[in-house]
């Protein structure tokens, strides 16, 4: 049942489209990697819409195949379990993203507003719409219930200041997929100095997220 290959269109840094053909197993691998990265990263990561779309397509195919299959066939149960597992990972991934969007909404929307032309977005178009609606809904509520009844000079509140930012200094566990040389680690306190480390392929580390954030985005490390 799972022998078709799928197209995942990615954008490379020149803004051009590159077609990468993945087997279903590779697609689910990519989903699980995106899921774990999103779970353990303190901030909202880049959107992976193509993976989400392909996984949903894959689930639809599997459902179609199951409907045509013989009832009571053992294969049916096994494939149903596989579908449930995939659906769980996908739902968990999307839930994790929504929770971060709601938690950090002013900062995420500000980042999107000031995003450069070539920079990838952290939000899918649908997540962006959701985030804007969440902001409007909350702002309107606070205004109508409290702010507009307050003295004139206190009727505005700066949500960027009032809502906490993600803590990029929090520590994360990672496994190195691509060897990195001369990674600059900034000191935590003023007494310490900058130092440089190498990350060997396959090694595991506990390190501040901020130091390795770009490596998560590029796929050079996997958060665990």
């Amino acid at each position: 049942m799972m022998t078709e290959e799928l197209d995942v269109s990615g954008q490379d840094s020149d803004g051009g489209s590159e077609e990468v053909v993945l087997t279903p197993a590779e697609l689910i691998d990519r989903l699980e990697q995106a899921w774990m990265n999103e779970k353990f990263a303190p901030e909202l990561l880049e959107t992976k819409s193509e993976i989400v779309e392909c996984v949903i397509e894959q689930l639809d195919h599997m459902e179609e195949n199951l409907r045509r299959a013989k009832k009571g066939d053992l294969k049916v149960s096994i494939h149903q379990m596989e579908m449930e597992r995939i659906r769980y990972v996908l739902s968990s991934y999307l839930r994790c993203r929504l929770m971060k969007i709601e938690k950090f909404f002013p900062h995420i929307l500000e980042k999107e507003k000031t995003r450069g032309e070539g920079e990838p977005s952290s939000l899918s178009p649908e997540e962006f719409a959701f985030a804007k609606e969440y902001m409007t809904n909350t702002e309107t509520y606070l205004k109508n219930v409290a702010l507009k009844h307050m003295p004139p000079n206190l009727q505005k509140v700066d949500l960027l200041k009032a809502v906490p930012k993600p803590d990029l200094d929090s520590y994360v566990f990672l496994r190195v997929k691509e060897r990195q040389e001369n990674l600059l680690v900034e000191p935590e306190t003023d007494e310490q100095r900058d130092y440089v480390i190498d990350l060997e392929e396959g090694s595991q580390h506990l390190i501040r997220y901020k130091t390795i954030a770009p490596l998560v985005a590029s796929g050079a490390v996997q958060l665990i």
Partner: protein
Amino acid sequence: MLCEKAMELVRELHRAAEGRLPAFNEDGLRQVLEEMKALYEQNQSDVNEAKSGGRSDLIPTIRFRHCSLLRNQRCALAYLYDRLLRIRALRWEYGSVLPSALRFHMSAEEMEWFNHYKKSLATYMRSLGGEEGLDITQDMKPPKSLYIEVRCLQDYGEFDVDDGTSVLLKKNSQHFLPRWKCEQLIRQGVLEHVLS
């Protein structure tokens, strides 16, 4: 003591157990807003006195009242925002229809916020592709098995199982049903997962 009422609002939520939503304290909020109005008016007249009457000795009091105003604003907004977060959690816990006991604890405006949130979430889930999108409020736990044993805690009536058959959910009846179909009913308290 200034800002006492505002502190009470914050304390009320701090004391409420994890996720619990106490009744909306309309009175408390109103008193905070009234205190803010009084402080502001006192400050207005003192500022005029200070400017025209040369009463610069009033300035520390003016500053103090301004700090109280800021504190009241911050406490009031924290109270309201924290309640919104609890209400948001209700959508994920209970589904789109809230038990009436909880609805009584919400103000009309909070209900409106909840309705907008529900709608926004539904639009997002529908957009996820496939025919009806993907309901991500399901599948909250990793699946351990396809079918689970459940006991019915209340009379629910007919319940459709996938392959066209249906079961009658009567109080105390036990059934062996697909896990994902039961999830929401378990959360609502209609079914109970029997762990043997």
